[in-house]
């Protein structure tokens, strides 16, 4: 189904960037790192479209651009509809001989707001129609571009400007929507999760998402030091911790068949390696309030939901459920 794409670190380092430096992203920006890496995994001519959001704003301030590939932005809620129009145009114009390229790939980037919330209708529609494109969700878990407001992708207990930790409410009271599972339920050919710490895994998944015929969905973990109140130097470390705590497990579902990716498979096979959620939470200011006696119940709840979701994933992947959780 997929080509055997072999690459060395040197290959990737030497491959010209399509997402160029000079953009206005913050120091330690997870999404900017994710975009640069993803554009290293393209296989040929690629048209990129962006939902409104941090990555669109930092990369396209007129008259400058960070994009060395055709790129278009139109609005916030419609990245998948953008891709639908581009793909439909390419398909028919190729058929009529109006474009010369044999193959032009289409990638749509959207943040969590543009995917979980305002963008889910366009995304669901585009996937149902079967357009051949890769949709990348760079998930920094809140509306960071507008100043850290909560989204459907914001995790339980996180303090944001619209779910602030107050004297009676401990941050966001709702769980993070299982967006990748929702996409698997569309019976689409390829869904995967990835983290920039495991960059080889990320690149392979991007290439698979591009190669697959029809729609592909890639959910990429993307820390935001500003919004998470974390050290800008620790973004990649956080990307590892999220996987090691099983808060953000890595998996792929090919034609609906779930399979754990190696970094998470290690946790499944050796449950003692699974770190407590606390280790991930305590290095982020957005969870600071949970480390007070008043809100410690919320901390326990986060661990409980993490374990519950992890165990559910293990079942889906046909892995033996560990007897004891961390």
């Amino acid at each position, binding site marked *: 189904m997929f080509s055997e794409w072999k690459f060395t670190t040197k290959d990737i380092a030497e491959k010209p960037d399509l997402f160029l430096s000079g953009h206005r992203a913050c120091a330690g920006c997870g999404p900017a790192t994710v975009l640069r890496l993803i554009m290293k995994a393209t296989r040929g001519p690629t048209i990129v479209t962006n939902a409104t959001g941090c990555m669109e704003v930092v990369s396209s*301030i*007129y008259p400058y651009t960070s994009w060395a590939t055709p790129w*278009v932005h*139109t609005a916030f809620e*419609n990245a998948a*509809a*953008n*891709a639908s129009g581009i793909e439909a*145009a390419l398909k028919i114009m190729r058929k009529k001989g109006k474009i010369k390229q044999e193959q032009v790939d289409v990638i749509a980037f959207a943040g969590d707001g543009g995917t979980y919330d305002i963008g889910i209708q366009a995304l669901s529609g585009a996937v149902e*129609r079967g357009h051949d494109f890769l949709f990348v969700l760079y998930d920094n878990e809140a509306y960071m571009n507008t100043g850290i407001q909560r989204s459907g992708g914001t995790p339980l207990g996180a303090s944001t400007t619209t779910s602030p930790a107050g004297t009676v409410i401990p941050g966001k009271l709702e769980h993070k929507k299982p967006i990748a599972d929702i996409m698997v339920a569309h019976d689409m050919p390829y869904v995967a999760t990835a983290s920039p710490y495991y960059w080889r895994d990320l690149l392979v998944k991007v290439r698979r998402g591009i190669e697959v015929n029809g729609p592909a969905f890639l959910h990429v973990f993307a820390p935001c030091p500003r919004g998470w109140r974390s050290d800008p130097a620790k973004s990649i470390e956080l990307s590892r911790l999220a996987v090691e705590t099983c808060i953000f497990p890595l998996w792929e579902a090919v034609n609906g068949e779930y399979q754990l990716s190696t970094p998470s498979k290690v946790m499944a096979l050796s449950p003692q390696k699974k770190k407590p959620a606390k280790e991930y939470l305590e290095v982020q200011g957005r969870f600071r309030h949970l480390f007070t006696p008043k809100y410690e119940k919320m901390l326990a709840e986060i661990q409980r939901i993490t374990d519950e979701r992890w165990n559910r994933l293990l079942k889906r992947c046909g892995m033996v459920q560990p007897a004891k959780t961390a």
Partner: protein
Amino acid sequence: MKTVVKQEMLALNGDEAVAYAAKQPDVDVVAAYPVTPQTIIVEKFSEYVANGEVETEFVCTESEHSAMTACLTASVTGARTFTATSAPGLALMHEMLFVTSGCRAPVVMAVANRALSAPLNIHCDHSDTMAERDSGWIQLYAENAQEAYDLIIQGFKIAESQEVLLPVMVGLDGFTLTHTLENVQVLSDEVVRKFVGSHQIPKVVTHEGKIVPFKLDPDNPMSMGPIALPNYYFEFKRQQEEAMRNALKRISQVNEEFEVISGRRYGNGLLELYQVEDADVAIVCLGSTTGTVRTVVDELREEGVKAGVLKIRAFRPLPVEGIVEALKKVKAVAVMDRSMSFGGGGGAVFHEVRHALYDLTPHPNVVNYIYGLGGRDTSPTQIRQIFEDLQRMIQAKRVGELVRYVGLRG
């Protein structure tokens, strides 16, 4: 004025006429969502696709927002695109209408004019398109199914003109036109294709001085739809206004060129005057009502009343000079609005026509008639009453109520 090519007479309703026009000029992508009373357009077009009568990628989207989005991005990828919608759909597209015109994407769209909720109503008025008058789209209104057919074909040519590059919406009155069977003269596919021409992608100069096509082209990467801060945004908008001015001329030219192949012309393309030249009293209107007014004008002329009707075909861009020229000798004018501008003291057409006449000394007395909301019928008798009101106004030398309502209870 002679028909240079053979045409076929078909019995089509307005929606069918629009679909027929959209299948002729080699449209690459149609992205649309069904909504009453536009549904027949997308149904007919789906049939053309299913029967292999068109080489078009039909994207049946999950919403009008996505339909307009997909048309926009297909257009900037280099495709000729078409869509159709109606009131709630147009309202849902609202955000994307501005993005499409701002991106200078020459999308052509038919709008089956319909009332906006609440209360829910599927019948004709112009609230939907009037609410989008500042969206940067060219707005043309059809009087009958024949004109709807002709306008769609002309629309592609106008929109894609290099000096224009603006999207075009063609309004046709819901049910009155969309669902009423008429005799429609259709041109052959070959003639239409030749008339519209192949989709020409404009050329732009890059910062490196290279001349490249203005589209998403892997050989010449370009960023489209960027963010422009206060130091640049304003200039983008001023350029759109320039394009609108160019459109005034282009709409007229295309009207002339269309006459050569079809034998049909509509005034100067922007306005159509009927018995206005020596009129004492005139009605200004747009859309299907014009036909009713024409009939009444004929009757009144027989009775010796100097009545006339000015049909606005292009509401955006508005041919201000043409309106002034047409109405400068008229003594009393009634502007008919099939939508309301709540709290604004009259409808949109009234505001604009009255504003156009401001510099005339003396200027005609201008009053507003709001009519036909939610599909309420407007009869020849009511039109006759409007003309009688205008005559009384002249005799009494008194304007009276500026805004009046036609056929309203109470």
